[in-house]
């Protein structure tokens, strides 16, 4: 069974024609030849919508294998859609949609018609004021803890709708390509072409040549993960050159412990650990566009600051309980990272077991606090259990006490409200652990751009004054940074108390300068001097794009690398080892390789020179694989674990050009055939009567013309 759609049998002459066409194409297909530049304008700054599959469905967009072409029509208000859907005389149309009209109502209208061959969306500036969220109203429904067996009244968002602005368009299946135009200049070029050629004049339709657009985003996988993984395995078994059609979404979880533990051994059953968790990934409708400022970055930056603050306590080695700082990847797609960690803990593949967990603190979306309130969410079902209730009560009290003196007011969200979508829910599925989820919202999200391309620094009110250089912007402390630093301080102090610390906590203070540098690096510019100084020398090429936090299929992504190195920098210590010793710690004495991780980082640039001073960092930061257990167990249709995969594709590009009328093309063909037939006839006659036409005296026997 072929992975691609089967093509019908063609006669043999078609092969020869294809060969001829290929030769012709090869001659003309050199990069950027001048005739091609006369015809096409490529659109370079675009982002496609790609196909994702889970156990039962496919979502996203698909184009045909040789691209979808359509006449451009600019839709800036709803009335413009009538031209596309009914009146326009040259279907199919390729729509250039204003960002403010990119909503469910318009998309469902376009989905139902065959007069649309594709969609290009221009990003709305400023962000749409009414909010925009292409995610679901009930994120990760069915993969959390609430089901018909556990708190059925809380399942499927019956009690609280977390994301009321969610339109769910990310989870629809479109059969035409949808691209995002990120560059306003390119959008202007397209609109200019439309104004010049496509606008109807005097009530009648526009005349040829018309401005058209072609989008290529053909996806190889179809139907569901079950189908595409089955096709993968068939390809791998039978084909010499296997063609994979889809890849599971996977990456790495980053974790680190306050007191070092043996990462390849097992921790004693009596040793208790407090887990602090955040997610580090986000998503939007378009591929590789996931700024995730409020949904992911705010929480993990606060977490990193809290980790740094906790390490400042003087007696961390004497604390009764250990603290594990965990950063989960893939949580947007049905809790890939946390479900894998729970699975590893159950199967004894992780140094900790579920018995070791004393309590769980999670940070979720903490940047948009109303006033100074931070809400504490607990699980109402496990609240019914007496022992768990006591422990949760204790946890909440410690948190409230830690906020004394800080500009953070902790309030309980209510015992009749379920937990928001969080990694804690996966741990609850396995064991009744006391835990709390800290957020800035009591019921529905404060974030009006949850999992969309508009979840940008502006959404979390990060503002910089004008005229700063990149270095100054890196160091400038914004109000957002100060607010997140306060939350981090409260969390760190609470963790100290939870871990059994008894001393004064005034030394445990998160540094707003670190927070602002992290916010700048993860949201505005990854390629800054601080990030450059804390990464490995051979990784410096990965920094440079606009920061985004999609989990992707090749791992680890930039975000995971950076979280790992930032955590190592903030919680580790500099040790005096040479490069060889740092890279091969087994050879050096006294390194305790099982407990620590050694990294050779490139160091900062001296202001006057061009060389860096590298050094060795010792930390307890580790990576573990975040691949859904469904792929380990080969249960592609699992409803218990995440089964999200991303389709593969060959090329993704977009271009605009003019199309000529069919009449002109047919005329060209007819003229060509006429000339060919006439010249064949004329040459035949001239050749047959050559002795009449050309009378040169010659010897007999010579060949005539």
């Amino acid at each position, binding site marked *: 069974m072929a992975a691609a759609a089967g093509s019908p049998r063609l006669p043999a002459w078609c092969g020869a024609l294809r060969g001829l066409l290929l030769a012709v*194409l090869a*001659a003309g297909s050199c990069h950027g*030849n001048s005739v091609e530049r*006369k*015809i*096409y304008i490529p659109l370079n700054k675009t982002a496609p919508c790609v196909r994702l599959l889970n156990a039962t469905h496919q979502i996203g967009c698909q184009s045909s294998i040789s691209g979808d072409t359509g006449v451009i029509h600019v839709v800036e208000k709803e009335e413009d859609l009538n031209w596309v859907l009914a009146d326009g005389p040259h279907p199919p149309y390729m729509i250039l949609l204003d960002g403010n009209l990119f909503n469910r109502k318009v998309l469902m209208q376009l989905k139902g018609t065959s007069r649309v061959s594709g969609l290009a969306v221009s990003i709305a500036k400023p962000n749409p004021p009414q909010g925009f969220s292409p995610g679901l109203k009930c994120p990760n429904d069915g993969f959390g803890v609430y089901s018909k067996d556990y708190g059925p009244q809380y399942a499927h968002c019956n009690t609280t709708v977390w994301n009321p602005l969610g339109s769910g368009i990310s989870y629809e299946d479109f059969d035409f390509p949808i691209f995002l135009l990120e560059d306003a200049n390119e959008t202007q070029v397209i609109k200019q072409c439309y104004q010049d050629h496509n606008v109807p004049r005097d009530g009648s339709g526009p005349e040829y040549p018309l401005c058209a657009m072609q989008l290529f985003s053909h996806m190889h996988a179809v139907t569901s993960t079950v189908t595409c993984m089955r096709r993968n395995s068939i390809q791998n078994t039978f084909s010499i050159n296997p063609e994979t059609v889809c890849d599971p979404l996977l990456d790495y979880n980053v974790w680190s412990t306050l007191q070092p533990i043996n990462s390849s051994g097992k921790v004693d059953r009596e040793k208790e650990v407090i887990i602090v968790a955040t997610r580090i990934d986000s998503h939007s409708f378009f591929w590789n566009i996931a700024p995730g400022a409020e949904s992911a970055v705010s929480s993990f930056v606060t977490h990193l600051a809290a980790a740094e603050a906790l390490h400042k306590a003087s007696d961390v080695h004497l604390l009764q309980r250990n603290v594990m700082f965990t950063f989960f990847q893939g949580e947007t797609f049905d809790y890939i990272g946390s479900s894998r960690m729970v699975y590893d803990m159950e199967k004894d593949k992780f140094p900790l077991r579920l018995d070791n967990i004393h309590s769980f603190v999670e940070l979720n979306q903490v940047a948009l606090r109303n006033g100074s309130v931070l809400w504490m969410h607990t699980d109402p079902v496990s609240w019914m259990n007496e022992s768990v209730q006591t422990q949760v009560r204790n946890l909440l009290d410690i948190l409230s006490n830690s906020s004394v003196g800080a500009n953070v007011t902790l309030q309980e969200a209510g015992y009749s409200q379920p937990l928001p979508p969080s990694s804690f829910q996966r741990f609850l599925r396995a064991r009744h652990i006391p835990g709390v989820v800290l957020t800035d919202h009591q019921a529905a999200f404060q974030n009006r751009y949850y999992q969309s391309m508009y979840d940008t620094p502006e959404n979390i009110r990060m503002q910089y004054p004008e005229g700063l250089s990149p270095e100054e912007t890196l160091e400038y402390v914004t109000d957002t940074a100060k607010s997140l630093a306060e939350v981090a301080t409260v969390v760190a102090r609470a963790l100290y108390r939870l871990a059994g610390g008894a001393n004064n906590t005034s030394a445990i203070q998160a540094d707003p300068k670190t927070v602002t540098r992290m916010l700048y690096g993860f949201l505005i510019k990854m390629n800054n001097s601080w990030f450059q100084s804390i990464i490995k020398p051979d990784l410096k090429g990965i920094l440079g794009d606009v920061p985004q936090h999609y989990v992707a299929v090749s791992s680890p992504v930039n975000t995971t690398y950076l979280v790992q190195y930032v955590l190592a920098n903030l919680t580790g210590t500099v040790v005096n080892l040479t490069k060889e010793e740092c890279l091969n710690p087994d050879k050096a004495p006294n390194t305790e390789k099982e407990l620590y991780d050694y990294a050779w980082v490139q160091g900062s640039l001296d202001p006057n020179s061009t060389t860096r001073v590298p050094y060795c960092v010792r930390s307890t930061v580790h990576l573990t694989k975040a691949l859904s257990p469904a792929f380990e167990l080969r249960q592609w249709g699992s409803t218990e674990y995440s089964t999200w995969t991303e389709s593969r594709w060959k090329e993704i590009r977009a271009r605009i050009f003019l199309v000529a009328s069919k009449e002109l093309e047919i005329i060209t063909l007819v003229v060509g055939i006429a*000339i060919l037939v006439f010249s064949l006839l004329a040459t035949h006659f001239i050749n047959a009567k050559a002795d009449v036409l050309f009378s040169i005296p010659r010897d007999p026997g010579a060949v005539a013309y």
Partner: protein
Amino acid sequence: MTLAVFFGCTFIAFGPALSLFLFTIARDPLRIIILIAGAFFWLVSLLLSSLIWFIAVKASDPRDEALQRGLLIFGVMFSVLLQEAFRFLYYKLLRKAIEGLVALSEDGCSPISIQQMAYVAGVGFGLMSGAFSMINLLADALGPGTVGIHGDSQLYFLTSAFMTMVLIFLHTFWGILFFHGCENRRWWEIAAVVLMHLAVSGSTFWNPLYVGSLVPSYLLMAAAAVWAYLLSGGSAQNLRRFLLCSQSGASPQLAS
């Protein structure tokens, strides 16, 4: 359906050349060899002239528009002269070849005359020149778009196809004229061919004013056709007889 444009332009540009090849060249292997060798000679002349132009362009300032245009004009003229020089070299080669063919033949005369070689060499030059003019345009004609988004004329493909057709014909006739001039030591015929070639190539600088390049080229082609016909043994009388005979359908009278 831009397959229509692709086939239309291919037939316009190469239809006459294809029919010439099928009916007059394809049967005789010796003519095919001369055709291919002629194409190769044209190719070498293009390679050398493009090398000169490429070096000139790289050595100059790419931002100076007037200089680049001047270099292009120089390049085109130099290429024309080099093509004609290679036509002369090919004539010399074919003269040597005739001596060899005479030596190999049974009855002491060559199976192919120099006039036939001139015609085939011209077709060879023309075909290769047409291929280089037209193939990359045809490749782009296959795509969904047509020329025009930057303001160029929509008729780009059509006019290029017609220009290629006229150029193939012109090379054929110039071949006949040039070899006749070399054979009979009539230098003014050679000079006329070179001047005509320069005029046709120069007229393409009128593009996109297509009437300025196509009309003179077709007029020159008509003139060259008449001249080549007369030099090949044709006359107005023969032409009348040919037309009347084919109209009446009577059997032709063999010329003496």
